[in-house]
């Protein structure tokens, strides 16, 4: 498919991104660069210095709401992007309200309990919408362990094993790769469905 066709097809698609941290910010940037027209982002956090090792923010954005900072950065890539930015904590109660109009949902949380909450809520209430998650991306190396696993409308990117800890932090390369695996899975879903 020519890039002009990719852009044209993506222009009227909506992707929901749950979490604007390492996975969410980088995945959003990749999708917007490819021509995605509509984005729904939700996160309650603010940009801090410790985020700069992997998240798509800049030093002068420290202290800003992540959704505001990400919106600013994405609009610098494409000023015509339609972006719905929600500064709130995602719960099983608001998942449907936030993401029911999306063609695909990206799970981009940091904490395993939040991943579990979203995967569960989406499988129960939004089962018709593909959910693309990121699981197992801490540390560095072991790139050959990264993979994509599918269970119907649940697709998980990552090694499925490595957990973040004091001695195995999330770092730009591996988090970036998994976030871009997610973006690529989203593209394949959106571009192949017609």
């Amino acid at each position, binding site marked *: 498919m020519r890039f002009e066709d990719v852009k044209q097809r993506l222009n009227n698609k909506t992707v929901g991104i749950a979490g604007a*941290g390492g996975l969410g910010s980088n995945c959003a940037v990749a999708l917007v660069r490819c021509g995605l027209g509509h984005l729904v982002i939700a996160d309650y956090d603010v940009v801090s210095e410790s985020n700069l090792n992997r998240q798509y923010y800049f030093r002068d954005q420290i202290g800003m709401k992540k959704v505001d900072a990400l919106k600013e950065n994405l609009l610098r890539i494409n000023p015509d992007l339609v972006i719905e930015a929600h500064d709130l904590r995602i719960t099983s109660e608001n998942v449907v309200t936030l993401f029911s109009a999306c063609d695909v949902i990206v799970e981009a949380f940091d904490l*395993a309990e939040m991943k*579990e909450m979203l995967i569960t809520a989406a499988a129960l209430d939004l089962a018709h919408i593909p959910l693309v998650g990121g699981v197992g991306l801490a540390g560095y190396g072991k790139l050959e362990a990264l993979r994509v696993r599918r269970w119907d409308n649940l697709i998980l990117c*990552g090694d499925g094993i490595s957990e973040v800890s004091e001695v195995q932090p*999330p770092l730009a390369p591996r988090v970036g790769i998994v976030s871009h695996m997610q973006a690529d899975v989203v593209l394949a879903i959106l571009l192949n469905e017609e």
Partner: protein
Amino acid sequence: MMNITLNNQPANFAADSMTIRELLDNKRFTFKMLVVKLNGKLIRKEDYEQTLIHDGDQLDVIHLMSGG
């Protein structure tokens, strides 16, 4: 005796049926955060004790870990 597909691998158990909780304990799936799909359908945590697995079923236990 029950033969099921567990995480895409054949698995067999002496019992004719068992609950999801029993299977998780039996296979030592003690990971704190996980989601369970029985024949493609997600099973809520609060239903693990009541939901029975039978011969021929497909069970997926998906572990979730922090990082993002």
